[in-house]
């Protein structure tokens, strides 16, 4: 009887935990929120393997996307990195990172805007959204 009780408790705990996970947070259908949601998918496909799910990167190799002006600062520079890749040692908060980032010109302006908006709104980051027109401008200017 005791065992059965235990099983029920464990099972219902799991069930409730599962239900909780399914409860949808209220979605504000702002453009930014939609862009962040789309950007998260792009991030998972393209960026996560190196920059990790928590955006903390890999020591010595892949730079973190958290608490750095590379991400939170000038949008144009950030867009250029995504378009052209990155091939230099970068020092962030006293650590050097040296892996080569491949260019991602193949992504659409929308995808780049979304993923950068996601990154600038995630992992504790808070910075303004990146718009499709921002990306277009950099790409057309040939900087990307």
């Amino acid at each position, binding site marked *: 009887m005791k065992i*059965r009780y235990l*099983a029920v408790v*464990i099972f219902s705990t*799991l069930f409730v935990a599962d239900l909780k996970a399914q409860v949808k947070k209220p979605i504000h259908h702002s453009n930014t929120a939609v862009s962040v949601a789309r950007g998260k998918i792009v991030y998972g496909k393209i960026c996560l*393997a190196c920059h*990790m799910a928590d955006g*903390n990167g890999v020591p010595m190799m892949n730079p973190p996307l958290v608490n750095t002006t590379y991400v939170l600062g000038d949008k144009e520079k950030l867009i250029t990195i995504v378009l052209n890749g990155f091939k230099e*040692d970068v020092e962030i908060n006293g650590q050097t990172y*040296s892996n080569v980032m491949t260019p991602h010109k193949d992504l659409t302006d929308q995808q780049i805007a979304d993923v950068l908006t996601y990154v600038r709104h995630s992992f504790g980051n808070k910075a303004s959204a990146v718009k499709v027109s921002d990306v277009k401008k950099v790409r057309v200017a040939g900087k990307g």
Partner: protein
Amino acid sequence: MKMKKLMVLLLPVFGIIGLIVFNACKDAPASFSKAVASAGLTLPEGFNAVAIAENTGSPRHMVVTPENDLYVHLAGNKKGKSILVYHVDGDKATLKSNFADFGGTGIAIKDGYLYASDNTDVFRFKLNSKNEVANPDQPERIVTGLLSRRMHEPKAICLDNDGNIYVNIGAYSNICSDFDPDKKGCPILDSAAGIWQFKANKPDQHYGDGVHYAWGLRNVVGLAWNQQDNQLFVMQHGRDALHDLFPQFYSVHQSAELPAECMFAIKKGDNAGWPYVYYDWMQHKNMLGPEYGGDGKKGADPKYIDPVAAYPGHYAPDGLLFYTGNQFPEKYKNGAFIAFHGSWNRAPEPQAGYCVVFQPFKDGKPDGKWEVFADGFAGANKSPGGAAHRPCGLAQGPDGSLYVSDDQHGTIYKITYKK
């Protein structure tokens, strides 16, 4: 009836427990000997681990003298010095001295000299009769000007019994695509991605003075001379990003497990095939790389050597040691310990490695399945940034104790065995 219901209710619980157990050190062959916790590590029954030093900096490779002095090479400098000397007495390590101003990985003792490398050069220091460095401010430069281009920079070293030193020069690229866009042949292989042999006693040798001993090794950090068959053994860090670059041929899961991290027994002139080939440990087959026409099924040209043992992808082997001591049980004698630094290139799957593995050997060749020897270094967060500790270097004490360095937070472990 009640029992059946209970089983149904408990199924998800069993499933989750199963997953946890299965993920503990993925793909490790079942080891039935009892594991014990020791200094935060789990070890086979009878073994004990003690953290003899903590916060030492970023200790990479190490070597112990017959007098129980432990030389530790730091990746950078601590208080301006890059080599620490601890005197070990039982479970206690006392910092005896520190010297040298070049951070790096490689360190070894042979024929009265201490050898140590940074990312471009190899130095040596004369030892006195007690195996102490007599003139710490006067290293003799043995090798100089090796390529170090931001990736796979550390130069790991080992020595043979004929007056030669072997130096790894890692490829400064994942898979050479950046240097070989037209697939005409990777141009960096002439001066990187291999092992070079130099004279152990000749000053200021350059590439031209050395022998290009082995080719096509992407990056080697763990290497050791096997005294049983008088041969060089190396551990290769396999390539990254099979799925990211070729999603049509490799699933996310395959990309996490492949390619194998390989152990090679090296003869002069051997070519392990990077960047043209990789080893698939699940198919037990050397494969043609997708950059050069492979598709996950096509085999490699047999002119490239096969590994003698293979391990799951991205575990990152940073230390290799052949155990010649008498302290551990008989099965460990002449077998290999491998320190796996732990993966980063398995996301979104869980990261893995972060353990010391034992590979049984017989007559100088791997014999039988590997097993996890010491685990639990990472702690709760098995990730490259979040791991509590990451195994890197291995050394054997004169009494047969095994030392493991952690270059993440600077712990040095001493592992002993008692019947």
